[in-house]
């Protein structure tokens, strides 16, 4: 039942863009039908996933298709867990696009966008419920290609196309690695079916090779630190609800793949867990540091995805270590942190991207330093962004805090329960603390410069609030963030059943999440905090103070302008200097001379360490070397025919019996 609901939802989602193709460009019915289809698919899919979480027997459907070896799909709690963000965001994004990317405004690419939006949702849902390598890769490719077409929605802009191509190359490197991995899987297990194998079925070297392939293949999709190079460009240049989907949900498919693959192998070496934990810490720290240096609102949010993937991987690494060292409580807390952060990140990152979309929609710029004071003209968007910002910083009383709490508790529990190994693991806890503080710095900068203060440009001054179709999806996401943050206890059954699937050994009773973490106490304190705030505000309001409106204190300066406000670059400057060694910011300082210098400007930028500093120079070097061959290709047909003649003569020359000539020559 639950599985059929999901299959119907997948069908609906995949078909959602089709009616629009048959209608004229000026018709608004295409977008309405597509949003209706997607909303229906979301409701069906979410109810199917909710039912699938708690069914004891895991339904499986075989397809009578010989060529694919009876490719089949199935549903367990882990699949159901990952289906939630896919369908939630699929539905909300479609509604959001009614206002954000309406057919009236974008008649030439609106239909394409909606077709691939539905396909993206359907592809992800298919890959999550697949139980066979073929179905998995099919869903994976549908997702990857649909995402490519969504990134290049505005294919008239060169930067969109460049970002799209880089994404396409990166995702296919990943797919190729996955093909290799599944081929190895077929070789060692004898089938493409994805079911766990006994721990002695595969030799350790083969397991290690498969693990590394999985790490590269899934890590490229998830945006793990050195493999994240495609991510900022693709997420910044796509339409904002697409960025929300890409950042919030598509990246999680990499995490899903990794979690599912590690579930297949029952006895992993401890090194794997340590490696994932370390990569997670590096991703988390460098992701947020690179985010601080950005001047582009959406690029900045994209780098924060790298950071959050790092936090998710820290949880997963701890769970892996717990599995290797037989510590069920590490597995529970680590995996709870990993899975819950998957949900949380999909909620607050989508929320932030939708808010960013609302800003871009109204002001037509993504540059942080050209905005300002939007909280006055767009109060709803500003409030929603504030919710997202507090959540992504992991601050109480919102949801980001709960998942980080799981990771912290797991790490610290490892230290107090297990001597040296635990102490080695817990070293990443201060790193996580630093990530948190840096995230606060980054979002104070974004929120302060974009929404607070006074408008820096005319477009920021004349901005207006987004339409209701864009505000409602944001509101739903914000409410989800608040509910998870204030009453996390409601999630215990969901997390418990997903973790129980991953534990494999059903004879070991894993402790429940609510036993392992103080969820009641946290929700009580969250409520106390809100109540304290309310009481203090009331107490301060009881008496009516004489209020005086005035200008901001400016030391008596006669003509303040909004240009003298602190900019995003200056807010970030101290941190960028601290992390000079990895960011290597480019500074273009003006040359000022004379008593009355001319107008001058200063410009700084932080380029990506992998793409801009490594891959592109390497690529252009290769291009230069191979440029030598270009002199043979110049478009003159006569010369090409000459090449053919030379080639034929050379080939014929192999028929010449040289040896016989030589022997005859010297025979005399």
């Amino acid at each position: 039942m639950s599985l059929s609901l999901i299959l119907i939802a997948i069908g609906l989602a995949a078909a959602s863009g089709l009616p629009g193709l048959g209608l004229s460009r000026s018709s608004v019915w295409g977008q309405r039908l597509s949003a209706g289809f997607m909303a229906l698919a979301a409701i069906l899919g979410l109810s199917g996933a909710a039912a699938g979480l708690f069914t004891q027997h895991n339904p499986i459907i075989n397809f009578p298709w010989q060529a694919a070896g009876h490719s089949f799909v199935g549903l367990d709690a882990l699949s159901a867990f990952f289906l939630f963000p896919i369908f939630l965001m699929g539905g909300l994004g479609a509604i959001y696009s009614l206002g954000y990317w309406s057919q009236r405004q974008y008649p030439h690419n609106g239909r394409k966008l909606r077709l691939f939006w539905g396909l993206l949702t359907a592809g992800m849902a298919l890959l999550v419920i697949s139980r066979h390598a073929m179905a998995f890769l099919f869903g994976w490719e549908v997702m990857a290609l649909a995402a490519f077409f969504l990134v290049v929605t505005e294919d008239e802009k060169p930067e969109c196309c460049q970002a799209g191509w880089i994404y396409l190359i990166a995702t296919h490197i990943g797919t190729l690695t996955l093909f290799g991995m599944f081929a190895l899987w077929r070789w060692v297990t004898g089938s493409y079916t994805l079911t766990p194998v006994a721990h002695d079925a595969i030799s350790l070297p083969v397991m290690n090779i498969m693990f590394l392939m999985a790490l590269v293949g899934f890590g490229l999709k998830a945006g793990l630190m050195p493999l994240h190079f495609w991510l900022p460009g693709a997420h910044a240049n796509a339409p904002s609800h697409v960025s929300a989907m890409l950042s919030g949900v598509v990246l999680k498919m990499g995490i899903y793949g990794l979690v599912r693959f590690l579930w297949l192998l029952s006895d992993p070496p401890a090194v794997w867990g340590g490696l994932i934990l370390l990569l997670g810490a590096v991703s988390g720290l460098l992701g947020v540091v690179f985010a601080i240096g950005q001047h582009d609102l959406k690029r900045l949010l994209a780098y924060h995805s790298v950071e959050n993937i790092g936090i998710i991987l820290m949880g997963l690494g701890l769970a892996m270590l717990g599995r290797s060292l037989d510590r069920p409580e590490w597995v529970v807390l680590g995996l709870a942190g990993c899975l819950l952060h998957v949900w949380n990140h999909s909620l607050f990152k989508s929320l932030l991207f939708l808010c960013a979309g609302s800003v871009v929609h109204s002001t037509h710029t993504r540059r942080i330093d050209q905005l300002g004071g939007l909280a006055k003209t767009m109060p709803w968007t500003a409030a929603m962004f504030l919710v997202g910002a507090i959540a992504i910083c992991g601050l109480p009383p919102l949801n980001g805090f709960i998942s980080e709490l799981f990771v912290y508790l797991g790490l610290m529990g490892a230290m107090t329960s297990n001597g040296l190994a635990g102490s080695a693991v817990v070293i990443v806890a201060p790193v996580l603390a630093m990530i948190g503080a840096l995230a606060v710095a980054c979002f104070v900068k974004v929120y302060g410069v974009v929404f607070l203060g006074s408008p820096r440009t005319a477009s920021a001054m004349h901005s207006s609030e987004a339409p209701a179709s864009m505000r409602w999806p944001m509101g739903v996401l914000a409410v989800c963030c608040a509910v998870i943050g204030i009453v996390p206890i409601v999630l215990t059954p969901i997390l418990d059943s997903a973790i129980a699937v991953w534990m494999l050994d059903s004879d070991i009773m894993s402790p429940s999440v609510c036993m392992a973490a103080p969820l009641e106490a946290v929700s009580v304190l969250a409520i106390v905090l809100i109540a304290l705030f309310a009481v203090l505000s009331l107490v301060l309001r009881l008496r009516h103070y004489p209020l005086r409106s005035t200008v901001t204190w400016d030391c008596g300066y006669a003509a303040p302008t909004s240009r003298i406000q602190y900019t995003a670059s200056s807010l970030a400057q101290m941190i960028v200097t601290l992390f000079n060694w990895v960011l290597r910011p480019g500074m273009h300082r003006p040359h000022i001379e004379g008593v009355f210098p001319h107008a001058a400007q200063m410009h700084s930028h932080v380029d990506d360490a992998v793409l801009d500093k490594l891959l592109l120079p390497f690529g252009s070097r290769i291009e230069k070397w191979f440029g030598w061959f270009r002199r043979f290709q110049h478009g003159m047909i006569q010369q090409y025919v000459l090449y053919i003649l030379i080639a034929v003569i050379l080939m014929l020359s192999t028929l010449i019996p040289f040896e016989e000539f030589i022997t005859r020559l010297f025979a005399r």
Partner: protein
Amino acid sequence: MIEKVIHVGVLLVLPPLLLGVINKTKAWFAGRNGPVLLQTYYDLFKLMRKGMAISTTTTWVFLAGPVITLATVLLAGLLVPMGRFDAPIAFTGDLILFAYLFGLARFFTTAAALDTGSAFEGMGAAREVTFACLSEPALFFALLVLARVSGSLKLTQMLHGPAGGFTAAVAAPLVLVAIGLFVVLLAETCRIPVDDPNTHLELTMIHEVMVLDHSGPLFGVILYAASLKMLVIGSVLLHVVFTFQTGRAWLDWPLFIGELLGLAVVIGIVESVMARLQMRHVPYLLIAAILFCGFGFILLVR
């Protein structure tokens, strides 16, 4: 129950006195009489009766910032034990909530500063969030050491130490952690050598410059929350430094209050004999705090 009431009472009433003690110490070092010990209370009462001047640039964030800061610091104060008495609220993992509550306070203090659109307050906000990036890891290393020594993840048990009292083996790590925590205390409460609470030159300040535009009751809330924060972080430090208890409740409360006032005197002495560091040298001090706490941790697990 009576202990909890006293805890809340001390938490609410004592903080402004700490500022008075610091100012008196500084005045004594400078050979002045200085303001009376209760001056901060008088200031608070005066501010609460005043009107407010509010910039037209600001939004509700400007008004909510100080209130949220006070709420979070109060809540954090309920998680920290005082003297040998347990904290009113204690649960496994409360140390993380404790640290993150300060993060929430920082978010809103700095956002309220940026709300005014003033470049000075932007500078203060930038400094505040930057230095926090270095003091947070130091605080966490210190908490890790305490968790490891006590084998517990409850702040109350962590700060009270293991059941049998501290052994000689943990003395060296605890000394290092105490030094690190003292630096964190100075940085978080914005005292010399990190920040100068007295200067009126906006370019050199952190905390004071962020609140330039707050006035009247809101400024009173900020002043009170700042002194409360000093008391809360100070009591964490005192648990590491002073482990002596008499065992009698009526003696232990005065003893703890005495320790707090002693800490205020030490801060006053530090402020009197040192100059504020150059802004670009502050990170070195905080990195030193990370190193102290980190080496404390390494000594413990070796």
